[in-house]
């Protein structure tokens, strides 16, 4: 098989574990079959998940692939493909192509304070970035994760957040839009939207790199505050969602201005797309 063919033919992967994180979101562990199942990966990259008979959907990896070829996908049941995945169980086989896209520029972030802003399912790609930052903790300055969820029951990776909250080298700030139940034990949580949380923290904007991932409205309401605080536009990284059918810059559904989300993105510097109509 040529390299070009390998990028268009999904490899078989088997679901080995499903862990439900909220009412509509689960973490799927998949093991790639065949020789050399491991692949190189940059946090923020995505794969194309194939459900045989259903089709493909782009999904960010929630963690770097393990040496044995195990990958983790954090998926919300929202459309046809993701519903098929949610209806699957351990032992079922799916297809994987990729990884695709650029991912977060870890080199550029080295030596700087890091602020991660995750909204809802945006926690999934930022989790892979967080893992990479923690694995090389010494290479970065102050590390802050701000994570907003709709309500306490929608907070993803709760146990990992509890562990994270105990660390002294990471600042964790959680918020939920509203509460209609008791807050989860062990997690201190604010009530309100991420911009309000952002307004309340102190950070040095000139030495901070910011990575944001979340639903489309999140970008508009956080970037303004960051830029006003003095964050350089080229140090604000956004992971964008678009309709990415092929992952290879061919099908032309995902352009952001003249950049293609699947090959030039999905991570963009704010400075590169701030003047592009419809980008944010």
């Amino acid at each position, binding site marked *: 098989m*040529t390299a070009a*063919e390998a990028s268009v033919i999904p490899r078989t992967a088997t679901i080995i574990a499903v862990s439900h994180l909220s009412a509509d979101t689960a973490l799927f562990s998949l093991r790639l079959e065949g020789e050399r199942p491991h692949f190189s990966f940059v946090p923020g990259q995505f794969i194309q998940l194939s459900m045989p*008979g259903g089709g493909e959907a782009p999904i960010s990896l929630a963690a770097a692939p393990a040496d044995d070829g195990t990958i983790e996908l954090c998926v919300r049941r929202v459309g*046809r*493909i993701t519903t098929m995945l949610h209806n699957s169980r351990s032992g079922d086989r799916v297809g994987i192509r990729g990884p695709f896209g650029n991912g977060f520029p870890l080199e550029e972030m080295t030596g700087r304070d890091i602020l991660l802003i995750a909204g809802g399912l945006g926690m999934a790609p930022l989790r892979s970035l967080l893992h990479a930052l923690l694995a090389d903790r010494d290479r970065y300055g102050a590390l802050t994760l701000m994570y907003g969820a709709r309500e306490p029951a929608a907070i993803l990776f709760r146990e990992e957040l509890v562990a994270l909250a105990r660390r002294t080298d990471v600042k964790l700030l959680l918020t939920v839009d509203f509460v209609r139940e008791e807050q989860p034990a062990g997690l201190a949580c604010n009530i309100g939207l991420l911009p309000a949380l952002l307004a309340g923290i102190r950070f040095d904007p000139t030495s901070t790199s910011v990575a944001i991932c979340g639903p489309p409205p999140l970008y508009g309401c956080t970037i303004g505050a960051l830029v006003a605080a003095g964050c350089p536009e080229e140090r604000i990284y956004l992971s964008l969602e678009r309709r990415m059918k092929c992952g290879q810059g061919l099908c032309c559904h995902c*352009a952001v201005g003249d950049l293609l989300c699947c090959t030039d993105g999905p991570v963009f510097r704010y400075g590169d797309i701030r003047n592009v*109509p419809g980008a944010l």
Partner: protein
Amino acid sequence: MAKRFLFNALLPDFFEALHFFGELHAPVMTSDGVTAFRPALSLAEVRLDYRRTLIPPKKYLLPPRETTLDATPTEGYRLRTPADKEIILFGVHPCDLAGIDYLDRVFLSSSPDPWYARRRERFTLIGLSCEPDDFCFCGDIGDNHSAGFDIFLEQAEDGYHLLCGTDKGEAILASFKDLLHERRIPPPHKREKKLPPSCFATAREGEPLPATPMWDDFAQRCLSCGACSACCPTCYCFDVLEGGTLDGDRAERVRSWDNCLFRGHGEVAGGVNFRASRRERFQYRFRHKFHGFGPQRNTPACVGCGRCREACPVKIDLLDIVRQEGTHDSC
């Protein structure tokens, strides 16, 4: 001097002999009154003086709908290889040659598309010179030379000068020695320019779309029918679909022509649509045509064939916007 001139009287023999090299297709008049590239047995069927076909030759390299992968539970996904068929396309105008050249750059670049690449290898292009009409404007787009052909027939009064662009073309012409004569090939004639020279100069990095009330005017008239894109020789965007048998034993992945004027083109699961308005979709197509995406950034895709101007049922003409480029503030 190489023998490269074909007298009119010998053209039928030349055409006949091309059948030896593959399945011969040419512009013919279909039973429903449309000029289309179709299999042609004899030159009598061929419309040598055709203006343009309704659908450009991209249909040979990117079929409107094709199965790309087969899947079974035991074997996973497997590539479905296109049929091993050599096609000779006769009578391709310079604009359509330029269209294929553009598609080659998109589909055969760093990671060649296996389906396109296989068809392209088995595709021979025999170009044919033409006379412009009111719709086309290729002189404003490219230089004055035809390119991207294996063989090109430049019409003269009593026959055709044969230009050769590839080894494949040379090999074919080598077998036609008995039909050809010696004659000096004249310099290529200049194609007529219809637009001010600055019109296509603005497709450069960071150039925003021109601000003009025309966007709103066009968006209001546009029917989202997609005709302009379907008939465009360089529109190639595709959707990827998949269906399987109910018992789950087999599945097929299909790619089919998509259309950026369609409402669902920018929609993702969950219902967010990144190009919900017709104006946004309209600008998306314009940006792709005249400014380019990704690796084709700053490369205008338009080849000036005039099809979209002729096909639009509400007379939207993208050239009206092109004429605004660089003359107004940006939007």
